[in-house]
Each structure stands twice: as C-alpha cells, then as structure tokens.
C-alpha cells in the first residue's frame, strides 16, 4: 500500500443575485417612541444569518447601537415582499433595501433632533452609541430615544422608512447570450492537499488553504461560518454526495443519512482561510454574499489534487473510491504527477 500525496488548485468567481424580474427585495424600518427600532422583512433566515446581518446594516445606517435594533422576518402580513433567500442575494439585495429604509427613518430622527437642538439636520451626526450631536460639538447632543420621542409626541412624525432594491431586468439575447446577469461578483481561490490510497482509491483531504474575496465582511464571524461550512459542503460534494450513486441509473438512491454520504466530524480537514475585501460599488457597505461560492472551488480543486496524486482524472462527481480505483487500475497503477 502506498499513500500518495497530491495538491490541487481552483479559483472561481460567483455572481451575486439573479437576473429575474429585477430581483427585488423590500424592507420597512420603524422605531418605538423610545428610539428602539424594528426592521420588518419577509426574507428568510435559513441559518445564513439574514436576521443578524440586516440588523447590523440597519444599526450602522441608523447610527444606533445594534442592541437597539431587532429584525422581524418573515410574516407576509407585516413584512414587505422579497424574492427569497437564494442566489447569494440576501445580504446584497435585502441589505440594500434595509439601508434605504434605514436612511429614510434616520432622516426623520435627525430632523426631530435638529428641531430639538435648534440646528440644521445636515450638521448632525450619530455616534453609534445612542446619541445625536452637532458635528464638531459633541456636547450639543440629544439621545436617539429623545429624538424619537420628540418626533412622535411633539412633531407628529413617523420615525420610519421604506426601502426597496431592484436591479433593472436585463434582456437576454437569444443569439449571443448578451445580458447583464448581475451587478457584482465574489471571488475565491483554494488549494487542497489530499492523500490517496492506491489500493482502495480512498481520498482523504488533509488541508485546505483558501482566499475568499467577499466585498466586505459585514460580520467576520458570520462570513467565517459560511466559508468553513461551505468548504465542508464542497468537500462533501466532491467526494461523497449523490442521490443517484449510479447515475443515470436510478437504482440504489439513498433514503436516509446512512446511505446519503457526507463527511462526518472525523473527516473534516484543517482549513486556513484568508478573507479579502474589495467592496462592491453597489453592495451594502460593499458586501457581496459569500453564501454559495464558498463550496465551488473545492470540487475541482479536489479533483485536480487526486489527479496530481495518482494520475487519475475523475471527471464525474462524486469522486468515489471506486472511480479512483478504476482509474488507477486502468493506468496500471498510481502515477504521481510530482509534488508541487
């Protein structure tokens, strides 16, 4: 038995959002009289952190502490329309809608503060800690709670805002495919190191090194969640997963988690990640959306690493031990392509 080491590389870009119907999302923001805000959406939190990231975007835009904002989603009676959570569109589309809504609400709050402080609203700024003060004169300040109360009880103003984000629909040319599919792209590159057992065809991922460009990491820990979990899923797609093990034959389709194979906690590989941020001009604070692209480079990188290790190109996913072993046997043995 020999364990062959191999290394593979892949890099990708990923389109954020869809070119369908303008791909709109809406948001409503309003405050209670004490300056505590609610964001109403109909967007879905599938675990990617929709509620959390829109909360941070709203807090940043409103200029209030994040504890002063809660996001409520998704109730069709109160949350305005959203296309849904897919296509890595949530952070980008919903985030932009929240910014627009929060800006409108902030403007009302600042107008009220300006009236109370007897200054021009354009001269006011928020400190993110619950205060509004005159730019350059921090002592001339009012709390966001006081400003909201004044708006609602003295000035008769609704501290609220509406937001929608829409990318104008782009036509698709039937002859050339010309179109504007999306507005920004995330990027990734990944190096995978594997070990291949030449007698069984088993592949073990031993290390991943990656660089992911996400526009801006609006919350670094949420980005990390996506990248770590997503790369795991990529590894899983590459080496384990299929609903039809003998595609296109339909036989032996798994019906439980024992037959539907995914890497277990004992299969995970160390993953060292670098996060790059090149803000998207139209992204919320430059954010793009790391949710989908994180898996994509792993699949080909693993395939390339297997080739590097034993000289077998498996072009049909998943790269099962069986396919690797068939390749090794067809070649008359493992053929290392050399170490990088």
């Amino acid at each position, binding site marked *: 038995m020999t364990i062959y080491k191999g290394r593979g590389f892949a890099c990708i870009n990923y389109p954020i959002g869809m070119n369908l119907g303008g791909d709109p999302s809406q948001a409503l923001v309003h405050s209670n009289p004490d300056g505590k805000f609610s964001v109403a959406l109909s967007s879905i939190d599938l675990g990617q952190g929709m509620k959390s990231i829109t909360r941070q975007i709203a807090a940043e835009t409103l200029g209030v502490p994040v504890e002063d904002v809660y996001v409520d989603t998704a109730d069709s009676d109160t949350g305005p329309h959203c296309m849904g959570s897919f296509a890595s569109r949530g952070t980008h589309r919903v985030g932009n809608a929240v910014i627009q809504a929060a800006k409108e609400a902030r403007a009302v709050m600042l107008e009220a503060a300006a009236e109370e402080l007897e200054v021009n609203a354009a001269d006011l700024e928020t400190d993110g800690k619950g205060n509004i003060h005159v730019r350059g004169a921090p002592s001339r300040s009012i709390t966001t709670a006081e400003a909201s109360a004044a708006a609602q009880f003295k000035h008769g103003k609704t501290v609220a805002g509406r937001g929608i984000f829409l990318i104008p629909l782009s036509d698709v040319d039937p002859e050339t495919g010309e179109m504007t599919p999306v507005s920004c792209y995330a990027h990734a590159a990944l190096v995978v190191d594997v070990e291949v057992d030449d007698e069984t065809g088993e592949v073990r991922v031993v290390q991943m090194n990656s660089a992911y460009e996400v526009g801006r990491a609006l919350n670094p*820990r949420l980005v990390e969640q996506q990248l*770590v979990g997503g*790369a795991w899923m990529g590894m899983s797609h590459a080496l384990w997963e299929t609903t039809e093990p003998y595609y296109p034959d339909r036989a032996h389709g798994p019906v439980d988690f024992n037959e539907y194979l*995914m890497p277990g*906690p004992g299969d*995970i590989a160390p*993953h060292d990640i670098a996060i790059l941020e090149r803000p998207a001009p139209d992204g919320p604070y430059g954010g793009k959306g790391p949710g989908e692209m994180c898996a994509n480079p792993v699949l080909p990188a693993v395939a390339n690493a297997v080739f590097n290790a034993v000289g077998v190109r498996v072009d049909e996913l998943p790269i099962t031990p069986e396919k690797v072993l068939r390749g090794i046997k067809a070649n008359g043995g493992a053929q290392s392509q050399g170490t990088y």
Partner: protein
Amino acid sequence: MTKKPIQFKLNGADKAVFVDEGQNLLDVLRRGVGDLSPKYGCAQGTCGACTVLVDGEPYLSCLVLAQTMEGRQISTTAGLVVDGGVDPLQEAFMENFAAQCGFCTPGMLMAAKALLDRNPKPSREEVIEAISGNICRCTGYEPIINAILDAAGRGVGRRSA
C-alpha cells in the same frame, strides 16, 4: 385506537400523558407535552436532531416507543436553561458561532451534555465520537467541536489573525 397513560419526568417536572400504542417519544414530547426542543429530522435514527437524555444517557427519541418511558427521567435542551441562565455548553455554542440554522443544535447539545456529564475533560477525538450520531449540514462541525471543547475548558479555539 387504544391510548395508554404514561407518566415520566421531563426536565425534573412530572408529566402524565396519553400515548398511541406505536407512538414514538419524539412525537409525545413535542405534541403530547409541548416540549418542542427535540427536532424531527428523519424518524429513522440517522440524524440525531431528536436526541434527548433518558436517565442521563443519550437516546434518539424518534426510535423510543413512548410507552416504555414509564417512570423514566427525560432531559431535553429546553431543560438546560436553569433560573433563566444558560448552561456553559449553551454559552460556548453561542460564543463559538456553533449554530447556523439551529435545527441540529438541540440534539447536538444533548449529545455533548451526555459526554461532558460523564467525561468533563474529553479529548477532541472523544468529542467527535460523542457527536458522531448527530448530523449538521451547515457548520462543517469544526465550530461545534470547538464549542464543546471550550465548554470543557479545553478550547483550542480558532486562530484569528
């Protein structure tokens, strides 16, 4: 259909409920006595989302015939919160961002709780073994393993540069 009365303790409180004869414990916990913390993921014993402790040991509640639980002590994630405060394990999950969709989390917590109750200072391999019957589709397991090690005071943690 005949209903059978059974009594058991759930998170220390007495419960009495009528169950269908073939009904599983998961269904009785959720719909019978209203503890929604254990989750339905497969009803096959292959995902672990319904893990509860029976007399301190982890069981898959979807595979437990409810009527055999007469007189047993059942613990669920809903019972981890004591006097409004969270368990160190829950705190470690929060701190380590060890949940995304949160659906596997209650089962994962109970599997981890069973481990730490028996072995307060587990190795990484022991943690991996303890959660090996629980599937997480979101996190890639790493944050969960780190959270459990953290709760045991053995956090190697993530490196952040």
